């Protein structure tokens, strides 16, 4: 290995390296820098990390959970992005990742989703993509439909190795629904033609959960038929850019249930909250064992909440459920053990509730994009030039 290795072999070796080493090795030489930051290499590295079973990430493939939360006090607002080691009997902080975006003055970003290593955040009409594993962020252009969208979805299109954002804009009172899709590869928004989406006007999307869920190249929303009130799951296929519906059997959730679609343990699931003043009575977790097969939907467990204000966030490797529990002053991350129905405080506090909890994944997406400069005054202040 002393003299030189042919270029094509260098590429093969670099493809197998974790992102942390690649970021460091950009400084080896100019040609390595241009190789690692080339779109082609970034794409191939992504494909390799997703498909190869020998890929080892920067943290030796440890079972890491990513927790994103927002803290605000009078003087200080911080976005946190931390990795937690999800072992059998503990959930300890492993590493804090730098969060390159700051939102000031109590206007935190809404996180649409964390999918395949990328966060999608928004605030009013500004949308951002963020890759915490390489500390890169990017601002998207403003959407073309100048109305606040009611539903957002974000996910990865495996066919073209693309990340896409979908906005569903309802005009109150008007019967038309308009759909807009952003593609990272194209770098622009696109309005979908109305004809193929006309059936959306017959569907009410249940608007309770901010988080949609990404799985199998599609994002999912819970909903009802407008006339018959039949429950269904609406999915948007990011590759074909079409909506599909999965009609659900009666009795899974009624009109008074708050339903959120989620992904637990890699399976599509429904979180059905039954309400009882002042908090929730219980949350039933339904899991679809086989994707797209309605009959494989079964009730995994019911979390007894009895009056507490709480949100189900995710599931740990040992089957415990992660909850966000409201205390007098803030929200605290807790772990629910289904066997003895105890809620254990994990001691991770945040002043605002929208947390994102997901399995850590890493790639080099956004590495070749210019970093967005954030001003002290947040993102919606004066106009500035996007580089």
């Amino acid at each position, binding site marked *: *290995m002393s003299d*030189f290795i042919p270029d094509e*072999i260098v590429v*093969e070796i670099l493809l197998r390296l974790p992102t942390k*080493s690649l970021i460091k090795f950009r400084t*080896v*030489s100019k040609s390595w820098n241009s190789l690692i930051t080339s779109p082609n290499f970034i794409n191939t590295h992504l494909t390799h990390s997703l498909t190869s079973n*020998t890929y080892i990430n920067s943290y030796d493939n440890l079972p890491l959970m990513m927790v994103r939360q927002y803290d605000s006090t009078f003087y200080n607002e911080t976005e946190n992005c931390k990795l937690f080691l999800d072992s059998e009997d503990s959930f300890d902080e492993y590493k804090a990742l730098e969060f390159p975006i700051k939102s000031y003055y109590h206007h935190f970003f809404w996180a649409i989703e964390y999918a395949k290593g990328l966060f999608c955040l928004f605030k009013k009409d500004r949308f951002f993509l963020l890759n915490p594993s390489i500390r890169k962020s990017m601002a998207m252009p403003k959407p073309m439909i100048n109305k606040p969208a009611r539903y957002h979805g974000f996910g990865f299109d495996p066919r073209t190795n693309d990340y896409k954002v979908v906005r569903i804009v309802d005009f109150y009172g008007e019967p038309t629904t308009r759909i807009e899709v952003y593609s990272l590869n194209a770098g622009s928004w696109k309005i979908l033609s109305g004809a193929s989406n006309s059936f959306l006007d017959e569907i009410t999307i249940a608007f309770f959960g901010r988080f949609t869920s990404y799985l199998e190249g599609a994002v999912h929303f819970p909903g009802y038929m407008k006339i018959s009130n039949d429950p269904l799951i609406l999915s948007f296929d990011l590759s074909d850019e079409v909506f599909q519906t999965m009609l659900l059997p009666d009795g899974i959730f009624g009109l008074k249930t708050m339903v959120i679609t989620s992904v637990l343990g890699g399976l599509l699931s429904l979180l059905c909250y039954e309400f009882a003043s002042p908090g929730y009575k219980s949350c039933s977790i339904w899991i679809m064992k086989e994707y797209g097969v309605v009959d494989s939907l079964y009730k995994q467990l019911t979390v007894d909440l009895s009056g507490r204000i709480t949100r189900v966030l995710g599931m740990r490797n040992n089957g415990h459920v992660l909850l966000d529990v409201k205390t007098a002053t803030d929200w605290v991350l807790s772990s629910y053990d289904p066997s003895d129905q105890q809620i254990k405080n994990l001691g991770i506090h945040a002043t605002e509730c929208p947390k994102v909890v997901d399995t850590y994944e890493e790639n080099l997406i956004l590495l070749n994009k210019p970093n967005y400069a954030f001003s002290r005054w947040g993102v919606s202040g004066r106009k500035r030039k996007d580089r």
Partner: protein
Amino acid sequence: MSSSLEKNMLILRSSDGEEFIVPEVVAVMSKAIKNMVEDECASNTIPVPNVDANILAMVIEFCKKHDESEAEAASDLKTFDSEFVNRGQEALYDLITAANFRDVKELLDALCQNVAEMIKGKSVHHIRIQFLGYQLFEILTSNFIWNIWCDRDFD
């Protein structure tokens, strides 16, 4: 000699003249040899230039193992791979050259994986010396500040 040779056997001759008799199924794991066999431009003896006897023996050992163990558990093969490629740098370099030149995909994959695991925690200096052939003198006399900046910890 060719008369005593069984039908599905091939002779590979290394750069230093040593000959190896291997089954055809093993030899055609190299794409380059496979193409030669398919085009029927291979006589009884296939010369393998640039690869000496020592390295050729290693490559044949690897191919034989992979050919036999197709039905075996993948984890066994994986341990074999990682043990096989765990060698000194000189041998590793020669193996990479041989695998690349003869186009043996499985071997190349295992070798690249091994090198990746070797270098992933190394410093930028180390990589420059290993991959670009930089000498210590050049590193010390080239842009000193730049090198300090390169070697800061990226954690």
